């Protein structure tokens, strides 16, 4: 069984059916490029994978576990969806960095919140343990617990800081740690956004046209970072209109048109010898735009 399996995803907005049954699978460490003309459903598919939209029909299996089944409404409450989201990361076209926080804080915020939840949980457990303990031992326990909690907090802090520094190094922005988003170029902002998405160590990292909002001279640095992630074994899904990038970096390519997968295969198959007439027409057109 493949690492990720999506089966028969369907999504309607009102009367407009945007996804008309999408199924595909992906192996661990692979990079999947999704191409297609705008309005074809690429972005909706990506948003469905991240549960920003909830598919009307279909199932998703990750690492052998059924993560999502549209027919099981009860299992799709807000807090459950929130946990499911943590398996996926998403880098937006418009970066969407938090403007009031530094680069460092942008990357650490979500980690810190999760760590805080874990910390609070541990604290509750300790308190319960103290209540269960005989009275004369409680005082000693309390001191002990306090020491452990302080240690946990210290470790959490250090862990987050070390991880964040490493991520910044990886996207080449170690010197911008304390800058605010408005002080950065678009390319730098997008690299911070990538680091932010990586910080929660998602199983699958998704990119929604990560270079579309950038000036042409800045797309290179972002694509280079994404390419660099491939060598470190991340599983990635990239919606893109950069055909060269798809050709060179992706292991597999899916062409989506009108809510359906029109063609799928290795880059060599899809770009070199498209079977569908629609794919061929799309590729011709994007080539023309290039020159």
């Amino acid at each position, binding site marked *: 069984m493949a690492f990720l399996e999506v089966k028969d995803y369907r999504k309607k907005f009102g009367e407009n059916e945007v996804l008309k049954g999408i199924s595909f699978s992906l192996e661990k460490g692979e990079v999947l490029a999704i191409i297609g003309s705008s309005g074809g459903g690429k972005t909706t598919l990506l948003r469905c994978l*991240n549960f*920003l939209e909830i598919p009307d029909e279909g199932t998703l299996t990750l690492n052998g576990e059924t993560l999502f089944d549209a027919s099981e409404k009860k299992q799709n409450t*807000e*807090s459950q969806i*929130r*946990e499911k*989201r*943590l398996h*996926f*990361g*998403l880098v*937006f076209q*418009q970066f*969407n*960095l*938090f*403007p*009031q*926080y530094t680069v460092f804080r942008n990357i650490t*915020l*979500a980690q810190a*919140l*999760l760590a805080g939840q874990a910390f609070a949980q541990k604290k509750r457990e300790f308190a319960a343990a103290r209540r269960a303990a005989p009275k004369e031992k409680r005082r000693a326990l309390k001191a002990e617990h306090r020491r452990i909690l302080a240690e946990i907090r210290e470790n959490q802090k250090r862990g987050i800081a070390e991880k964040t520094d490493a991520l910044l190094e990886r996207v080449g922005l170690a010197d911008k740690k304390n800058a*605010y*988003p*408005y002080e950065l170029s678009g390319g730098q902002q997008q690299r911070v956004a990538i680091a*932010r*998405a990586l910080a*929660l160590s998602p199983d699958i990292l998704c990119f929604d046209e990560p270079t579309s909002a950038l000036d042409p001279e800045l797309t290179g640095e972002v694509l280079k970072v994404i390419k660099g992630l491939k060598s470190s074994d991340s599983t990635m899904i990239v919606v893109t209109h950069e055909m060269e990038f798809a050709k060179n970096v992706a292991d597999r390519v899916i062409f989506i048109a009108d809510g359906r997968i029109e063609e799928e295969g290795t880059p060599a198959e899809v770009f070199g010898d498209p079977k569908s007439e629609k794919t061929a027409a799309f590729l011709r057109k994007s080539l023309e735009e290039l020159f």
Partner: protein
Amino acid sequence: MFWQISLELLQGFGVTCLIFAATLLFALPLGLVLSFGSMSRFKPLKYVVKVFVWIIRGTPLMLQILVVYYGPALIFHWGFLDRIVAVVVAFVINYACYFSEIYRGGIESISKGQYEAGQVLGMTRSQIFFRVVLLQVVKRIVPPMSNEVITLVKDTSLARIIVVEEILKVAYDFTVTGLIWPLFYTAVYYLVFVGLLTLLFGWLEKKLQYFKV
């Protein structure tokens, strides 16, 4: 004589400040509740709040004070609220409506992307609101809020309509005994207070200048 009158005016100004502070204390949070109501996905609630805000913003505050004070007695024979309580109730309702519209504008001006970025990072709705959105909203609404708050200082003089002894009423009463200057002297009190508020808001704006939204 001058000090005596300054002191009496100061007493009146105390009432002015009381109305001001109590109004802010209740209207700031109530405005947030109303703004959530006006943005609710539950349609009936949304329209009820919108109509309410329309009525309150569409009628003079002076009329609202009269309604709050005399209404219960005239319509239901319930008796009277304490004058100052009636004034504060009317002010809180009125200003909460104005605040709610400012909040709503501020909240709606935050891009959907900010919420979605929080969502894909596994944040809860309240974490997104308090950790991501709120400060950006605050930065955006400081200028319009400072306008409203300064207007509130001066609107307190409307309390006179139900004989609340705020500073302007105290000063007006001096004219009956033949003293005119206290009336104009009240400007000093208002100016000093508004001056302090202006400094406070300026400081706040500067504090929030470290980022751009």
